């Protein structure tokens, strides 16, 4: 498929411009260098007004003639060229696939262009920020992860899908959910509930929680991947539905929530199109143990990593709110964390029949 739409043409233009600039330097016997927006914690700012994490202006120079950069420099253009080819051919592939496409042994050496995917993934992100292109514009997607069910019909690549009739597994959320791929149709939902854990999502689905409570039920199976986050954002914006997040009561759970809410450090450049600053933290709160009278024996002791992460989070500007400081401090003081499954101690459907309805009814969430 040789035909490329305007968006693809633009992306290819950006890629080859990057290459031409380098060649221009080379021809002038100047040291070629790439200016890559830095994706480190130091270059991330919290925009209080918009309540999202944003990438700063800091750039790092990637120089061909720097022993520490040379390899990455080569890799950047290897990836760039592979993406160009994908776009040219009208194909889209996973970042894992791209790793295999670009991997080969360097001429006259025993080294490979990439040793593992951990080496190629960050280069893709570098390229995205350098030429300011979305991953999908590079015809790449991450591995699918995440499911959804609920009272809504969507169109996925032209196929209408009724999210009420998907049995126990639900609709698998693709990593590219742009409007040209996914469109929303009639919707009965009143809110969106994202749960961290697949097991809890299954419980809620089996109990048809979404039907009784008129909500779209999603899981990102841990940290929500790009596709899930982008979908949340679109549904929040386009369907004007509030977003609730249900995570374990531990620092990692809080962090998952915060990423949904204002973006991640790593993908700060995507915050604007993914972060849902109004997302509500429905649970599980450090105060729930008492409120719902969970026995002590279902708690888990905080480990060292939990403690240090919680302490770090106390300092994050986006957790610098009274309620959040209280959450974190209560957790640290108690020295324990809780999994969502702990509610099963009070009955297998306690979470869907008692806990969640009560929390929503009582408006016991944090924002």
């Amino acid at each position, binding site marked *: 498929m040789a035909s490329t739409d305007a968006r693809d043409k633009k992306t290819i233009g950006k*890629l*080859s411009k*990057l*290459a*031409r600039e*380098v*060649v221009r330097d*080379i*021809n002038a*016997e100047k*040291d070629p260098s790439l200016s890559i927006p830095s994706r480190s914690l130091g270059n991330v700012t919290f925009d209080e007004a918009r309540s999202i994490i944003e990438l700063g202006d800091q750039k790092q120079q990637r120089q*061909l*003639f720097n*022993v520490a950069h*040379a*390899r990455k*420099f*080569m890799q950047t*253009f*290897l990836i*760039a*060229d592979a993406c*160009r*080819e994908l776009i040219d051919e009208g194909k889209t592939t996973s970042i894992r696939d791209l790793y295999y496409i670009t991997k080969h042994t*360097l*001429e*006259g*050496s025993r*080294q490979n*262009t990439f040793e593992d995917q951990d080496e190629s993934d960050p280069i893709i992100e570098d390229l995205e920020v350098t030429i300011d292109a979305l991953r999908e514009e590079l015809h790449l997607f991450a591995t699918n992860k995440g499911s959804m069910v609920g009272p809504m019909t969507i169109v996925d690549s032209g196929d209408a899908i009724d999210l009420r009739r998907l049995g126990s597994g639900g609709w698998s959320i693709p990593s590219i959910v742009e409007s040209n791929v996914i469109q929303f149709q009639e919707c009965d939902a009143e809110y969106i509930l994202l749960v961290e854990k697949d097991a809890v999502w299954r419980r809620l689905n089996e109990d048809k929680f979404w039907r009784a409570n008129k909500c779209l039920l999603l899981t990102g199976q841990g940290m929500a991947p790009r596709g899930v986050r982008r979908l949340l954002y679109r549904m929040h914006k386009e369907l004007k539905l509030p977003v609730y997040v249900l995570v374990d009561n531990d620092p990692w759970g809080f962090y998952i929530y915060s990423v949904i809410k204002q973006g991640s450090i790593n993908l700060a450049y995507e915050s604007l199109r993914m972060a849902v600053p109004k997302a509500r933290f429905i649970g599980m709160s450090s105060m729930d143990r008492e409120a719902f009278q969970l026995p002590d024996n279902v708690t888990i002791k905080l480990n060292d990593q939990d403690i240090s992460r919680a302490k770090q989070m106390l300092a994050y500007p986006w957790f610098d709110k009274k309620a959040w400081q209280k959450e974190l401090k209560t957790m640290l003081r108690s020295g324990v964390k809780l999994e969502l499954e702990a509610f099963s101690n009070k009955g297998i459907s306690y979470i869907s029949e008692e806990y969640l309805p009560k929390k929503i009814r009582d408006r016991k969430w944090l924002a």
Partner: protein
Amino acid sequence: MVRATSTQKNDAAPKKPAKKGRRASAESMAQKQREISVSEFFTKNRHLLGFDNPSKALLTTVKEAVDNSLDACEEAGIPPELRVEIHQTAEDRYRVVVEDNGPGIVKAQIPKIFGKLLYGSKFHRLKQSRGQQGIGISAAGMYGQLTTGKPVVVTSKTGKGRPAHQYEIVLDTRKNQPNILADTTIDWERREHGTRVEIELQGNYRAGRRSVDEYLEQVGIANPHATITYVPPNNRAPLMLERVTDELPPETTEIKPHPYGIELGMLIKLMKESTHRSVSGTLQAEFSRVTARVAHQICETAGLRPTATAKRLGPQEIEKLYRAIPKVKVMAPPTNCIVPIGEELINRGLARELRAAIYASSTRPPTVYRGNPFRVEVGLAYGGDLRRMAIEEDSLTIKAKTEDRGEGPITLLRFANRVPLQYQQSACAIFKAVVDTSWKSYGLSQPRGGLPVGPMVLLVHIASVWVPFTSESKEAIAHYPEIIKEMKLALREVGRKLNAFLRRREKDRLQEKRRSIFSMYIGELARSLSRLGAGDETRIQKKLDVLVAKHAPQREVAVAAGASEVADSPVGLVEMSDDGELDDGELELDREEPRQLSLVDDDAPSAPKASKKKAAPKKKAAPKKKAAPKKKAPARKATSKKTTTKKTATKKTATKKTATKKTATKKTATKKTATKKTAKKKTAPKKGRRS
């Protein structure tokens, strides 16, 4: 020693006899003892002279003869040409032949020199020479005679047209007198003058550590002005060492003892035997640096009249005098009597034996311990092929310790007045100085209290009118703090040079690594860029190559040879130049100017060049100039290059890049020819080309 003999005689005598009889026999014995004790004593205590076992006996015999030959040649101002042969005559018997082109020995002297212990020309003087005692060669002859019954055969000729005398001599051990078995006159066409000594002895030949081979190799290193041909036994390949300089070391001069170094017994002897009337006169006449004023001060401090008659001083008075000396300030002794090998010649001496990547050396200015002037110098050869070039593989004694490049401890070569010291390393002041030097700061690892580790041969030489050995066997140098301090200073100087080289080489390696990293990626990059529509792949690649060359400049060596060993070659220090000789480059740059003596010394500033003799000025000049202008092998082309002076060397640093490239390319060529040359030498040892 007299006592040893007499005790034995006493034991043999019956215990009972009356006092009178015993006294009478003691007296008669005393008479005999004076004549026979020396040789008898040494017959029974041969280990004191280095004949404790068969292999050491063979080594000592060669050593005594070679040391004498070198001493004689130098004293007569003749560039030494030596030939050493060892022939096996029976299972445990060897005939040692040492021949020199020295001044020869006058006929009348020959029997006594070779047939009488304690007969020599070097004992009664204070002068830097290898031999000192007057025992060496006659002891070797005596040992041979005792173990084989064969006489020493000496042939000597004192000048062109003169007859050569050939003696067969045995030593009458009871009388310590020579017995002449044969005395003939022969034609000795081959030599205009010189001496040939043949001794047959019971011994054991072996290669390796502490062997004759090793000894001669080391003699070669410390005596670059000597040509030595060595024919080992058992049809092993001969060793042919050609001199690397025509210039003899400047003549050493004799000095009088310095009062600070005197011992009481010696002072008593001097006073008793004085030909001068007064104490003051005697002091002035017998010692160096004792002026009338100083003599008066000594007498005054001792509470003696300067005009007192020297011969009449009682023992207490002499002791007072003895105690007074250190309290009076006396100028340091003259130091021009000490002749070092010199920095340049040390490097070339090392290069004659080894093909190292770098040579560096340092000669300290003269200084004094206990009234004796001395100088210390140090040389090192690092990396490369630390292997003797001229002799067959399995006898490479130096290599034996260093071939596992960098694994084992360095090889330490110790010298005293140019004589290799092969025994008692750990008891020696040199060892202590090396061990106490912190080699880590110069880029070598070093176990606690041990020699540094690495592919290195380290040479330490002490030259003195009197080398303080720990014992008569002349194997280890005593731990005088002044001596150890000088040694450490010299070691530090070469250490710094080594460090500069190692750092430089590390830099080169890093550059090479950078280059390989860049080159590995640019091909891939050029392809991607081209496919992204940025231009033609080969054109981009070419441009990238230019940039790589700019960022990781390549040493031409690597391109030319592709041999890592050559790439190891030093830049800025001593390198092998295209004629296989040394090219000292910037070697001199970081050399400190010789420092003055700490003691007051009017001679000191000019000391290194103060010798009145003709050779003196050259001595100072030699290490500074790139090389003596008329070196060996005038036929070779490259000599013209050698006229560069120190200044040019400085410039060279500035334009290092170009210089480096040049030498580097040349070097590659050298390597090949050098190897060929060696091969030739192995099969056909030539005679010294200059005689």
